[in-house]
């Protein structure tokens, strides 16, 4: 059974790499319009002062679900993935989270995959360190001589690597359920309800807002520098980047004073309060979620000897 899973995972890999190649190779997709602000394929990076994950979260169809419920479900699933450490659980989580975000949330599958593949470089490099080992003598099922010793690997090590990769992908999928369907401001409000200290929550709220202001300022400064050949070659672009970044810090410190004055003018008294939409936890959603968690536990219990 283990061999089949390894094979299936190896088949999955080219698909993921293909997605990355498409993502980096095609910056201006023709025929696929996601709205005016969303024409670049660089997920996770800013385009004109906005972050695509934030955009996806606001346009998700299951944004109306109770945010605390989504955060709890997502965190619980991540913890189960790690604690149970079972390849069947991982596979079920990958598929069901993709289903929830794509089918129920209405996110295009290509966008889902491109967010899922953000950590892929890190995953592949770190798995490489786990599946390959070195020793002085020729041991293991496959080995290569590299001058002073041997690099070798064995089937159990490969299996361990692939299972670990699936576990990471499962945990990342569960995290995606939260970040691709719940806007950050709602996640922060969940933290406030969880009794995280007020100053910390206020700081997070302010930082979240300031991030977009600074992104916008940076985008404009970068345009200005670019149109003056500021990114002509490596040396110039290092100099430009440094100058733009230092200017950004100066501007942000100046703005900080102005924002405090604005808050003071609106009766800021050491506590930031925001109007929140009331979203009730729907019993029709909570029961299947509870069933899903129980199913994961049952699956682990039944298969704990098999792999």
């Amino acid at each position: 059974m283990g061999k089949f899973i390894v094979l299936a995972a190896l088949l999955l890999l080219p698909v993921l790499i293909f997605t990355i190649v498409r993502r980096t190779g095609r910056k201006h997709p023709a025929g696929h319009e996601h709205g005016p602000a969303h024409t670049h394929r660089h997920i996770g990076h800013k385009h004109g002062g906005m972050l695509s994950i934030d955009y996806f979260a606001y346009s998700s169809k299951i944004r109306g679900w109770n945010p605390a419920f989504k955060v709890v479900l997502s965190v619980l699933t991540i913890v189960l993935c790690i604690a149970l450490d079972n390849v069947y659980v991982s596979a079920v989580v990958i598929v069901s989270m993709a289903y929830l975000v794509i089918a129920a949330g209405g996110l295009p599958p290509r966008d889902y995959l491109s967010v899922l593949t953000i950590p892929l470089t890190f995953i592949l490099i770190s798995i490489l360190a786990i599946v390959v080992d070195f020793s002085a003598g020729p041991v293991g099922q496959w080995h290569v001589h590299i001058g002073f010793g041997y690099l070798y690997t064995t089937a159990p090590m490969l299996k361990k690597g692939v299972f670990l990769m699936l576990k990471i992908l499962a945990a990342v999928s569960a995290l995606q359920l939260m970040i691709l369907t719940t806007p950050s401001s709602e996640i922060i409000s969940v933290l406030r309800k969880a009794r995280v200290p007020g100053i910390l929550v206020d700081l997070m709220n302010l930082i979240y807002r300031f991030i977009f202001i600074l992104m916008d300022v940076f985008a404009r400064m970068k345009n200005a520098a670019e149109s003056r050949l500021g990114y002509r070659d490596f040396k110039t672009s290092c100099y430009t980047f440094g100058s733009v970044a230092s200017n950004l810090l100066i501007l942000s410190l100046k703005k900080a004073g102005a924002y405090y004055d604005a808050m003071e003018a609106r009766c800021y008294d050491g506590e930031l309060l925001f109007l929140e939409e009331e979203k009730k936890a729907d019993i029709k959603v909570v029961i299947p979620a509870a069933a899903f968690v129980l199913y994961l536990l049952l699956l682990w219990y039944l298969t704990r000897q098999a792999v």
Partner: protein
Amino acid sequence: MKKKQKIALTVSAVIALALGVVPAAGAMHIMEGYLPVAYCIAWGVICIPFLVAGWFSIKKTLTGHRKSITILAMTGAFIFVLSSLKIPSVTGSCSHMTGTGLGAILFGATAVSILGIIVLIFQAILLAHGGLTTLGANTFSMAIAGPLVSLGIYKLSKVLKINKHVGIFLAAALGDLFTYCVTSVQLALAYPSAQGGVATSAVKFLAVFAPTQVPLAVIEGLLTVVIIFGLETYAKNELTEIGFLKVG
């Protein structure tokens, strides 16, 4: 540009070219799901004393001058934006700064620990870098260990009367390298090698990440120096306000 800067930039360009920058070389966030439960909890617990110290220092600042809340928040936002920006690299691939060295030099290590954990949370929920269960490990390597080393080297170079900008370069670059070493050790502790144990495993992780992280550290050091140059030229007042020039 001064002659010294030119030489430094040329040297870095040569190093970066020689080692080659792999596509999408971000800072080394440990992914969600990578660490077993025991390690997630252990690293979280190790962070607590540092975070508590940072918490009290921030609280003290805020009760003294309430106005500094926007400055603190702007600082956090600045570190986040800096770490999400594509930095120039020779091969046209995309890599990012960590910005923690700069943060530690400008704002002190205690404030950076709290701001660092908030920035890491936002990196997880807005950029899908890092994760929630690995937050403890990432906080330790990026918001505590790296900044502390940066600050230590910066102070040391001041005591030893090394040129200020060389000191800043060393502080930022070595802080970055230290973060990378700590992360490798964290990975190795969780996944020790079958034969050689933790030490062999650590060497393996250091080796596979070196091609991306070493050039990155050099570039980070250079960019930090350029940023400080710009700040010293145009923002004497603001720097005095946050305490950078006062000390120096």
